[in-house]
């Protein structure tokens, strides 16, 4: 008998559903919310409202694409946290009700672990142990992954996440939200000629708030001398900011490899879609003889496939959630 899991992800502003059979992704559907562009960031109440109307169409599409009947499902998986409370609430409540109605078990999934385990959706899969650099709009973590369920954070941001640094820079430059992909695109035609400082943080932790401030002051100063400075130098500014963020990330990763002796490294999270980060990792891997794993684009941003894959491994060891499970916006990595 194969294990068929319907997975639901609604932790932030994307509503996603996936069907996974024996750890293999049959379908992975995502509905993104355009409404947040107007506000320059995710508005939690707007996101919660949108999930409510996106969820059934997305779940329905995922089941249709996989050609799976609801009654054939073995379990329902969902992101329990971390994420936005209102957003999580919609997906978790819906998933629990489906589980109850279909008399099948629930599997709660940690969103940050799921980003890492997305590497197990397809070959080549990394062998354990490996180091994951998980970078998104809400997180920046260096994680030692010893097993599907044994993960240790050895470094993380002490203030902003790397993705936040992209988005906040975008806001200063007048770019639409989310700014990450736009900065990536604009940077292709620019040179990293403006120097921004690398924060001096002890150990393997990160900091991006100082960088954000230095960008702000830099822009203010330049605009005073030349009002259209941003328009004239947009590509170079983007290239410079991106270059700095990525060197901060990769320098810490290199330090983590040296410290742990683990030379198998993987990228995870939304920012792993950034072309400069992907290329940068490959370059350093080549230079240092690391084995590098870069996720498929579909598995970088928030998606339910990674939730379904993670749930499959939990299913195999019988780790189910009870019906009293509730969203956990600040769910820690150890759970």
């Amino acid at each position, binding site marked *: 008998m194969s294990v068929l899991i319907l997975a639901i992800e609604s932790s932030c502003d994307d509503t996603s559903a996936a069907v996974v059979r024996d750890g293999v992704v049959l379908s992975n559907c995502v509905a993104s919310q355009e409404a947040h562009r107007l506000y320059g960031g995710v508005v939690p109440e707007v996101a919660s409202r949108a999930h409510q109307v996106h969820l*059934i169409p997305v779940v*329905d599409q995922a089941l249709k694409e996989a050609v799976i009947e609801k009654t054939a499902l073995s379990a329902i998986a969902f992101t329990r946290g971390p994420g936005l409370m209102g957003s999580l609430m919609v*997906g978790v409540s*819906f998933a629990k009700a489906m589980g109850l*109605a279909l008399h099948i078990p629930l599997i709660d999934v940690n969103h940050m672990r799921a980003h890492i385990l997305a590497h197990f959706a397809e070959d080549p899969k990394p062998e354990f142990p490996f180091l994951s650099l998980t970078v998104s709009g809400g997180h920046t973590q260096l994680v030692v992954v010893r097993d599907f369920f044994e993960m240790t954070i050895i470094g993380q941001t002490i203030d902003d996440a790397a993705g936040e640094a992209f988005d906040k820079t975008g806001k*200063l430059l007048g770019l639409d939200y989310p700014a990450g992909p736009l900065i990536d695109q604009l940077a292709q035609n620019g040179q990293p000629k403006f120097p921004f400082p690398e924060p001096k943080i002890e150990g393997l932790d990160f900091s991006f708030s100082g960088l954000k401030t230095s960008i702000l002051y830099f822009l203010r100063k330049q605009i005073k001398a030349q009002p259209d400075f941003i328009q004239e130098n947009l590509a170079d500014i983007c290239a410079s900011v991106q270059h700095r963020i990525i060197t901060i990330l990769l320098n810490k990763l290199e330090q983590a490899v040296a410290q742990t002796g683990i030379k198998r490294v993987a990228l995870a999270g939304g920012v792993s879609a950034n072309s400069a980060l992907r290329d940068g990792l490959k370059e350093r891997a080549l230079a240092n003889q690391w084995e590098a794993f870069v996720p498929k684009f579909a598995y970088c941003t928030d998606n339910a496939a990674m939730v379904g894959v993670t749930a499959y491994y939990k299913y195999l060891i019988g780790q189910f959630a009870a019906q*009293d499970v509730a969203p956990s916006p600040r769910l820690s990595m150890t759970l």
Partner: protein
Amino acid sequence: MALILSIETSTEYCSVVIGNQGQQIAVAESETPMSHATELTLLINACCQQSDYTLDQLDGISVSIGPGSFTALRIGLSTAKGIAYALDKPLVAISSLLIQANRSRLFRQSETETETNILYIPMIDARRMEVYTAYFNNKLEVVSPPKALILEKNSFDPLRKKYDKVILCGNGAIKAGTLYTDPFFEYGPKNIHANAMIQLAEKAWKTKQFADLAYVEPYYLKPPNITKPKKIL
């Protein structure tokens, strides 16, 4: 003639009933405030066990659609959608204000038949002195549609000419108690409960007033409260 599960989550306590042909056959309610996320499906399960019916035997699901607490409404509707979608059951959405008015009417049934000139004013707390409210006559027809109202001493004075009495009910009526004390005002039940949904759900089911399962949203009554930053650089 229908077997319907009704879910009410518009305020700090949630409740669930199963009605069969308009009669209550199972009931369960939360005892801890704001415990919808953990308790709701357990309450539904408890109702199934009490009634000896399983969810797949239901003819439909009914849900209190709001107005009320945004998060609480989302939990109720997402849960109702999950069951209805999983088992291909029709969904009935009922106004929380109508449920509250009906609850008040059920409480004073015998009087209601003789009084024609009364108004039910259900109120759902919307923080500070604000409530969500609508006016219903004694046949539960809408006299004034739902709105958000900041309660003031004279808020209901225009009604005095036309009506003999108004019945204030719902959790918003708790804070109304100090403002409206003369005999024109009568107070009904302050809590809302799924048991006042049974007949409303049965009626809606019979007349096939079903919600669009995928796209129905809670009746928020208010847009999201968003402030845009003015200065960027």
